[in-house]
């Protein structure tokens, strides 16, 4: 199942590599990845699409939240009730 993740990240040297590296190290494929500035120049937003089962998603979110630069990490597909995947499709990737 596809999941869209929103990750808020401190703009630090190597921060993007650490996020991408986490996916690689935990054998989880990134389908698409977009990095955008936010209104705060010190903070970037990553929108990322991955696929995996519920356990994989839960574990990758928990591991993301252990990265020091990560301010917040959430699955947009979980924002809707009962993990509505259609919501993810509606978002710009």
């Amino acid at each position, binding site marked *: 199942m596809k999941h869209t993740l929103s990750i808020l990240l401190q703009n630090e040297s190597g921060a993007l*590599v*650490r996020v991408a590296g986490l996916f690689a190290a935990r054998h989880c494929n990134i389908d698409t990845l977009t990095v955008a500035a936010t209104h705060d120049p010190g903070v970037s937003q990553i929108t990322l699409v991955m696929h995996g089962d519920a356990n994989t998603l839960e574990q990758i979110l928990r591991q993301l939240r252990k990265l020091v630069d990560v301010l917040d990490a959430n699955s947009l597909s979980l924002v809707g009730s009962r993990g509505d995947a259609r919501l993810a499709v509606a978002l710009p990737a």
Partner: protein
Amino acid sequence: MSGAEVVVQVLADEGCDVLFGYSGGAILPVYDAVFRYNAEHPRDDGREALLLVVPANEQGAGFMASGYARASGKVGVAIVTSGPGATNLVTPIRDAMADSVPMVAICGQVPTSSLGSDAFQEAPVSNIMGACAKHVFLVTEPERLEATLRTAFEIARSGRPGPVVVDIPKNVQNAKLRFDGVCCLPIPGYRARLRQIEHARLDDDACARLFAALAQAKRPLVYAGGGVIKGDAASALRTFVDAFGVPVTTTLMGLGAFDTRHPLALHMLGMHGTAYANYAVEDCDCLLALGARFDDRVAGVPEKFAPHATFIAQIDIDPAEIGKVKPVDWQHVGPLSVALDRLTRYGKTHGVALKLDDWHAHVAQLKRDHALDYDRASNWIQPQAVIDAINRHARGRAVVSTGVGQHQMWAAQYFDFAEPRHWLTSGSMGTMGFGLPAAIGAQFARPDALVIDVDGDGSIRMNLGELETVTTYGLPLKVVVLNNRGDGMVRQWQKLYFGHRFAATDKSLHRKDFVKAAEADGFGWARRLERKEELESVIAEFLSCKGPAFLEVAIDPDAGVFPMVGPGATYAQMVTGEFIASRTAPARAEGATTDMF
């Protein structure tokens, strides 16, 4: 102040007294600042304020810092130069990450103007270490150096501890800076999550649910991991067990979390755990996992681990470990000592009294019937007998480090562990070569303690250069090498699963004279023990040496580590070997076709 002086001042402020490291071009300003700091801060006892311990190889420095941290609970510090200095530190950093050891590694780096130019001794340290460490900082703005270093210590020791690498370009070390004394980096995400975890408290409802499950259970068992030691929760665990009488088994990393001589202690569980601990796991109907993570050496087949446990509870400081391997029925994320104290208080005020007499009798019987044992009749010196003899002198008080392999498992099985931080071993990474440098670091942390490196001939070769470090610093370290002329653990697997084809593990033609090597490095006492009847007297002499001592023991090359829960096997399929009673007929070993490791 120069950037280098800022580095040294922060180290001093953070309470460092020993630094482990090897110099080089890109870290010279920091080494010079340490030299000047020590000259300007003489101590009454003549010792240097920031003692700099120089290894033979940077990997040694990393493991020394790790041994220092594991034995003391303080942050271990390693300082190395750029390029090869930093890459030689990769293994100890990953090892510290895997075993949750607080460390700060400071690496010199080429100046910012040369970054990315393939300069001499340049390596992409932040990329390499980013995949290995808890966190990496590359300091490109000199004015952030002080805050970065202080924050590195905070990250290393807080939450689930781990190693933090600070990569400092040489121009940042030379920059002129104003010392602030308190500044930190904001790291808002990390701090917010940490605060939430550290302030998490068990409410009455959660306590009630756990005690309801315990009251229902007839055979509850505590499965305690390294988190008990890292979280300074050993005394809270002891109070909990004294109050409610739940027996305890510990992981390899948890040895010392609960006195192994206690009647309710089952020693270690897992692949090479005691048979009685593993049978107790099979028999238990309720499992409390405390600072333990159902690692594959413990729960090789998670769905068949503790198969009769109808209730599993887990407490950990790391939210990612909850239910990662095995689903749990009750969970708490927070500091373990606080949680255990709270549970004990709740249980006592609510008059909880568990009726576990039958279970205690069962546990005592398991310990009697399936005690560890080995080939006592053989003419060869058995490795277990060597550990047994050392243990009789040490009586649970020695600080013991090991390499990786059979000797590590024999040491884990046959030593008594009375207190936390007396057992230093590379558990998760399983890094051969860990033992000697870790023991050196531990001896600096505990100058008056009996520190023993129990090593194997294969493992000690990997960092043999550090023998000289022992004598350079006059450490009273005891090094014992159990020599079975090969890589015994791999050989054991080849025997079991690869038809006795000992590819690359037989070292009977190797010519190394370990005693001469130790003598060459300045060991005043170095001996080889070959005769069984001399075992007791030689061990006594070895351990009573005032200075550094080196003992090589020629052990039975065919001695195996048992019990053994083979790769991909369940506890029910445990093989106890020839000398330990099994309660089932031994299962046939599966062939080399398994992917389990």
